[in-house]
């Protein structure tokens, strides 16, 4: 029997609730002080203070480099990504919008963007072992690499890590292939030799569990 999904007809109240939803409000506490220091540093970077850039670098390089290495799997490539990310910080600190998220999240979003761009460009080279359909996604920005930099600071990082580890392995693998390798659903299905529907279901189920873990 077909059942209409009630959630598809969300009320205006729910919509307003979504619009005023503030991720920042969910993570008060210890990180708040660090976030203020971060924002002050970015402000100084925007004014052209090289020491402030060094400060931002020292504060965040481990997570930025860690993410770059996780995606690139190569030290030299990861270092290139780091270089590009901090170049972008230097060039665009004036445009950093404090209302949109933490500096850490901003940096990590840029890191993933740069790294996935490189990875996809590399795969698209004629002499590389490219995957079917890869050409179609090269240089096309997608939500996961260019979206709102929501706050997920150190406080929540531990929770995300634990939640990801706790996922059933097939869900975790599908999610990691999408996020850390930048593969599309079709490419993931090809890599795992699973039907598209299965991949879709696994990614959705996994993300819903992560969401649950983050916002119990």
């Amino acid at each position: 029997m077909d059942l209409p999904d009630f959630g598809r007809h969300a009320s205006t109240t729910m919509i307003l609730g979504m619009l005023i939803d503030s991720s920042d409000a969910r993570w008060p506490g210890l990180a708040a002080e660090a976030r203020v220091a971060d924002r002050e540093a970015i402000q100084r970077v925007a004014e052209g203070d090289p020491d402030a850039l060094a400060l931002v670098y020292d504060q965040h390089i481990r997570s930025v480099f860690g993410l770059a290495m996780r995606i690139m799997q190569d030290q030299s490539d990861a270092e290139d990504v780091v270089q590009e990310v901090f170049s972008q910080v230097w060039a665009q600190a004036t445009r950093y919008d404090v209302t949109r998220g933490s500096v850490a999240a901003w940096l990590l979003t840029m890191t993933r963007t740069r790294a996935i761009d490189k990875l996809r460009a590399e795969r698209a080279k004629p002499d590389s072992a490219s995957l079917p359909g890869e050409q179609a996604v090269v240089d096309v920005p997608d939500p996961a690499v260019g979206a709102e930099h929501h706050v997920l600071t150190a406080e929540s990082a531990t929770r995300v890590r634990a939640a990801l580890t706790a996922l059933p392995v097939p869900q975790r693998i599908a999610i990691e292939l999408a996020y850390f390798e930048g593969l599309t659903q079709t490419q993931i299905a090809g890599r795992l030799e699973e039907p598209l529907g299965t991949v879709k279901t696994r990614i959705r189920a996994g993300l819903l569990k992560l969401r649950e873990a983050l916002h119990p």
Partner: protein
Amino acid sequence: MSDPRHEPFDGTSALYAIGALTAAERVTFEAHLEVCLDCVREVRSLLPVAHGLAHTAPPLDPTPALRARVLEQITGAIPAPSAAGHTGKTTPKTGAAARDTDRDDGGHTEPAGGGPGALFWLAASLVVAAAGGGGWYGAALDRRIVDLQGNVTQATEETLRLRLDAAEARAAAAERDAVLAIVTGASAQQLTLVGQPLAPRASARAVWNDATDMVFLASGLPPLPAGDVYQLWFVLPNAPVSAALLNPNDDGSATVIIDVPDTLSLPTTMAITVEPAGGVPAPTGDVYLLGQPAG
């Protein structure tokens, strides 16, 4: 009776949020977002989750040399072209000046006032160009590319946010219009449902007209046990027919537009029961609300 427009996109919100759609798939899904509040809501809720995955990469220390290289290159200590015979580096410019210069002319440093004359610089630039200045110019272009890539990222981010806002607004407006059209129709009829002992404060109204759409509005619904869902039924003489699943808001209210089967003639008795998530083909749980046609 589920929305046929949504079915092909079931689960696509997650793929969209994590960036696992091709460009073509993304365009198609974004068109769907314009008419599907549920998908907009899911994308919004999953985007922060997808972004949170960045934190699952283990932090790593790079070599100290990277720090020197990165900061030196960025903050204006531009290495002189090695092939030109220089071994030292130019004096670092102050930040803002360096960036402005980089943006305006691709990275050229201006001779300081009172320094060597124009002929010297012309000669020097010829030497540089002849002896590997191309590499240096390439680096300047690389920096420009990084800058432009940043613009693209930022524009993409802003576009996505606005697109979700617009899609949400349009989907909400479309739903409001649909509800209004039914409720204000000249031939609108209604059936009131009354809370039963398990939900004494609950009430609901079903409004329909000659068309096949029905609006169902409920309020005062008690919070559901985890894993359960409210299910609405048309209680027909031979067997109840499922009308909709309801997941109330925090305040216990719920609104749903129901596509009434052509074969069903209204009014009919309606009831709400509590059932396992996903609903059941025939009611198994307690009745929370009940409405019977007059007479």
